Each structure stands twice: as structure tokens, then as C-alpha cells.
């Protein structure tokens, strides 16, 4: 068991001919991911790195029965690519693209609410179920199959947590980076619910960051619903908030969003806070052995 993706997941890569898309499609294929289609307009009927290409996602779905998509499409066209995937019936969309205008994402979210589709990202390094399936740009060698579910917003923090749990041989069930953009798809809460229900996941690591409200929401959900052990690290506890420009942000935020505030909220929910980035693996191990 795992969450969201496994060895049966059939993946289409949107913009597989881009430099990044091509490179990471090859690494994912080597890892054993079933990449069965690529989409690039004007290249339908051709092949790239052994994968058949299509002009549209709809055609790829019809011909190859893909159920997940990873998107490397440039920012100006990425919103269109996400909606195309949803409309073609893709159930899980991972958007790696960084730099999508936020107004585009506001519209995308409204459209996606009408489909039975999950979106990870944008600006996400992706998702991995170690030993089974890798979608995105995560470095596979930091991971190993095991029992910890890891959540993060950005890439480097999830790699740290993964490597440390690999080194102490706990391994990971699935690791999801939900993306660093303010308007994005799946939240920490959505993923926590899946980890709580997943039999293979025995413990959860949440890698938070200053800014936004994802950690505060996660804390409330954990307190109400999650029974598995959760540890968290929140980056930015010693970093001053940027100087304000006007009053609008503080009127809306009501002083939420600081790393210290996130730590208190999580601690109140029974989450063990790790204060040093270097002690994530050892803290989780102690929780299991202690």
C-alpha cells in the first residue's frame, strides 16, 4: 500500500520534449515508473525515449489508458495543460512548472472543482512511492521503500527528511511535495487524510515553512483526526517576516503564518516538533523504538 501512486500507475508526460521533461522522464522510466505516453502538440505519432507521443491528452487517454499526468509545460501554457488533463479524465495531475501566474491558478482551481481530479503543485518537485513509481524531479536515490509518509511544500526539505529516514532504515511509504505556490492543488490536510487511512504508513513527517496557513490547518486536522504519530519541522523560526507593504496582508492574515506560531499550533495538536533540520530521522526512529 501507499498513497496516490503505485507500480500500476500509468503516467503521461505533458511536454516530454522539453529539456526538463525529457531528462526526468528518462530517470523515472529507469526507476520503473510506467510512463506510457507523452504529449507534445505537432509530434503525435512519433516516439521519444521509447514512449509514444500524442497531440492531445484526450488522445493519450483513449489510446493508452493513462490515469496520471506529470506536467512540464512552460508557465504561460501550464494552466491550459492542467485543465486539459482534468478534462481528459486524468485522476492525478502533478504540475512541476514553476512561475504560473496566480490569477491563472485561481481560475484553474474553480474548473478543477467540477472534476474528479487531484492536483499536486504547481511548483512541486513531485511525488514518489519508493520502489514503485516516481512522478516529477525528486532524486530517487534519497528514498527507499518503508513505512513513513512525508509531506512538504518545497523540494529540498523533503529530500532532507527522505534521506534521513532512508539512512536510519525506516524508509518511506509515499512522499508528496504539495508545491510552493500560494494557490495550489492538494493541501497538507488532503494528504494527511490519505496517510492516516494507508495501512503501510506507520508515521508521518510534515516539513513546514514560514508563510501561508497550510501548517495551521494541518494542526487542526491532526488534532481532530490523525492517530498515527506525526513529527514536524518548520523552517523559518529565526527569520524575520519581510517588512510590510501597506496593511492589506496583515488585515487578512490576523498574524497567522509565522514559523513559531505554526510550531505552537502543531505542538498543541500533539505533534512532536523537531528543532534542528539534522534530527528528523533520529526523532522519528526514537518515536518507534523509545
Amino acid at each position, binding site marked *: 500500500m501507499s498513497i496516490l501512486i503505485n507500480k500500476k500507475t500509468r503516467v503521461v508526460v505533458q511536454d516530454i520534449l522539453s529539456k526538463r521533461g525529457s531528462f526526468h522522464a528518462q530517470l523515472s522510466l529507469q526507476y520503473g515508473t510506467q510512463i506510457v505516453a507523452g504529449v507534445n502538440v505537432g509530434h503525435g505519432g512519433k516516439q521519444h525515449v521509447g514512449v509514444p507521443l500524442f497531440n492531445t491528452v484526450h488522445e493519450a487517454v483513449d489510446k493508452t489508458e493513462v490515469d496520471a499526468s506529470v506536467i512540464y509545460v512552460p508557465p504561460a501554457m501550464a494552466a491550459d495543460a492542467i485543465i486539459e488533463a482534468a478534462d481528459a479524465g486524468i485522476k492525478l495531475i502533478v504540475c512541476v512548472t514553476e512561475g504560473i501566474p496566480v490569477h*491563472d491558478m*485561481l481560475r484553474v482551481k474553480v474548473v478543477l472543482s467540477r472534476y474528479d481530479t487531484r492536483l499536486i503543485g504547481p511548483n512541486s518537485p513531485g511525488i514518489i512511492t519508493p520502489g514503485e513509481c516516481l512522478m516529477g524531479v525528486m532524486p530517487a*536515490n534519497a528514498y527507499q521503500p518503508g513505512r513513513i509518509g512525508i509531506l512538504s511544500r518545497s523540494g*529540498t526539505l523533503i*529530500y532532507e527528511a527522505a534521506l534521513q529516514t532512508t539512512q536510519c532504515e525506516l524508509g518511506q511509504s509515499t512522499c508528496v511535495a504539495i508545491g510552493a505556490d500560494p*494557490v495550489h492543488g492538494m493541501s497538507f490536510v488532503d494528504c494527511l487524510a490519505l496517510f492516516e487511512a494507508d495501512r503501510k504508513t506507520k508515521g508521518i513527517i510534515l516539513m513546514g515553512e514560514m508563510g501561508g496557513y497550510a501548517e495551521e490547518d494541518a494542526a487542526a486536522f491532526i488534532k481532530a483526526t490523525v492517530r498515527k504519530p506525526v513529527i514536524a519541522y518548520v*523552517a523559518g523560526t529565526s527569520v524575520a517576516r519581510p517588512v510590510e507593504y501597506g496593511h492589506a496582508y496583515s488585515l487578512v492574515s490576523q498574524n497567522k503564518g509565522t514559523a513559531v506560531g505554526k510550531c505552537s499550533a502543531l505542538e498543541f495538536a500533539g505533534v512532536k516538533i523537531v528543532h534542528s533540520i539534522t534530527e528528523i530521522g533520529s526523532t522519528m526512529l526514537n518515536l518507534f523504538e523509545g
Partner: protein
Amino acid sequence: MRLHEYQAKQLLASFHGNVPKSVLICAPAETTNLVSSLPATDWIVKAQIHAGGRHEAKGVRLVHSLAELELCASQWLGQRLVTRQTTAAGLPVDALLVEEVLVLQELYYVSILIDPVLERVVMLTCALGDGSVIEAVKKNPDQLMKIIIDPAAGLQPYQCRRLGFGLALPESKVRAFSEFLQALYEMFVAQDLLMVEINPLGLAQDGRFYAVDIKLEVDDNALYRHPELAQWRDIAQEDPMEHVARAHGFRYREMQGDIGCLVNGAGIALATIDILNLHGGAAANYLDVGALATVERVADAFRILLSSSRINAVLINIFGGIVHCDVIAQGIVTALREQKQPVPVFARLEGNQADRGVEILTGSGLNIIADKDLVHLTKQVVHAAKRGASTV
């Protein structure tokens, strides 16, 4: 990206939002000529900087004669203005906005921004009375009204009416108020804004609503489709190091300490600052090379970082994911070899080819200590920075 008040007002006027009549003065010699186009001889002079808090900092003044205005221009232009929303160094004043004095009956606060929890565009309003919006909300939190705008439907007339009557406007004024809000929202969406704040919005004697002051932020990611706004970027208002870094595609942020940090990723940047803090050190800055690190890019990044004057030591914290640490090590060595008086450098390399990377750095003969143990290195870099500070 922020715009100047005069730019934002020009933009709002193009969406049919009312703004006071004004002229922009960039050199004292222009003053006489330019203000002749404005009515009366009383004007408001406003220093144009990318920050708020100008009133308390005396960056806004009422003048009663041309002589007073000329004095203002000669005193302010070319100087720096420090406010509670700037750093201690302040921001350069390269332009003054000179506006007609409106007789205002009431003042209101209006802003539009993206609420990160709701992931929706929201509009906030508040009656101001005599004080600031913060004071007004503190006194009576119910005064702050918030409406949520559906991106598919846009701002609805009933929402404007609710806000208008909520501010206790007489019915005869609600239409003009609604028209102003519609103009503001139209601009917000059409120009890919992240935030626009009208503080205050003034109801004038002519029955119209005017944007007396405005703050505005554009989504950098959307500038490609707004070339006219991109041209308005004023780099003099931005941190020069940040600007150089951005031109190379790096993220840079200035901090208060004396340890330079080179990292790859936004999350690891924060984590590096935190671990320095945990061991008694303080970051001078961080430079994020991003995910696409090559020998040349790492060398460029390191050169930029080393050009900062306040650095007593450097901590490099790199997680080699897809990028190999030996590539990163070569970039570091390349940049450090060019330095005449190199500061002590401590490099933590982890992940792909970390051992090889550590070998390259250790064998370079340069003043670098490389390791995979971040705690150990952090302690050493903090110690080295303190020694560096005491020898200066």
C-alpha cells in the same frame, strides 16, 4: 513587483477610477513649468518610494506657494527617505508627485488581494474616521468588511452595494462608490495584481470617490503578458544585490548577520538560517542557486555572494538531488580561486556524489572545510565568523 504611487494612479485612471489631478517632478528645475498646469496654489507633495509610512516620516507635505514647492523639490530629490516600512538605509527619492488638494468629506479604506486560505480574491473595506485602518479595526473589528469574489462571476453589483451600505453611505453615493470598486476590481484582474490598497479613498465635495493614496503589487510571474508594466520596474527601489541575483535567475535575500549562505532551494535556505541561529550565528544573506545548478551557475552565484561586504564567513549548504555534488564543488573552487582575500568557507554537501564533492573541496588547497555533517560545520562557521568579526 511594486509600482510607484504615480504609476499606480495612472493605471487606475486608465480603468476610469478617479484620482486627483497631478504632475510628476523629477528635477527641481522642472517645478515652475509643470505646476502651472495645476489649479490653485496649494498642493500636496509626495515623495515617490516603494514603501508606506511616508506621512510619519514627513515624506508628504502640504505646500502653499511655488517657493515652498521649489524648496521641497530641492531638499527631497536625490535624498533617501526612511519610514517604518523601509530598511534603516531608506529608499531613494527620485520623483515627487504634486497633487491638487481635494476637500474630502469622508475617508475609507479599500483593498483587494488574494486570500491564501480561501484561495479567492477578497475585497476589504473599512470606514476610517480620523485614524488609520489599523486603529479603526482595533477599536471595532466589525468595521472591517470582507467580501469573497467568485473568479467565474467577478465582482457583483450587490456585493458593492453591501459594502457601500455597510460603510453607512447614503443611497445617493452608493452608485458612485460601486463604480469605483468595479474599476478597481477590473484593474486587479486585467493587470494580474497580487494586491491593491486604496488608503484612503476619499469622498469629495463633487460627490465622487478619489484614490488619495494607492499601493499596488503586480505578479512577477505575469509580467510577460504586461510589457507596459514591466517597463515600470524601478530597480533603484530594490536591493541592488537582489537585483543582480535575479538577473542571473537566483533568489537573494539580505539579512542582519555576518555569515553568507549559499543554498539550493527555498526551504533549505530557511533551514540553514535556522541552524545557524540555533548555534549562535546569524546569516548575512542567502543566495539560492535553485535546482538547475551547473559548474558555471554555482561559480556565478558564489561570486555574487562574496561581493557582499558584510561577510566574515560562508556556509554552503547543498543537497545534491539530481545535480551531482562534484559539479557543485567545482563551481565553488572556480569562484574561490579568483578571490584575493578569501573568507573562510564551510561547505556541507549531501546527496548525490557528496563524498566526491567533499574530496574536491578538501583537496583544492583553498581555505575550505567540507563535510557531510551540517551540525559540525555550523559550529565551525559560527566560530570562524566571530573570530573574523573580532579581527576587523
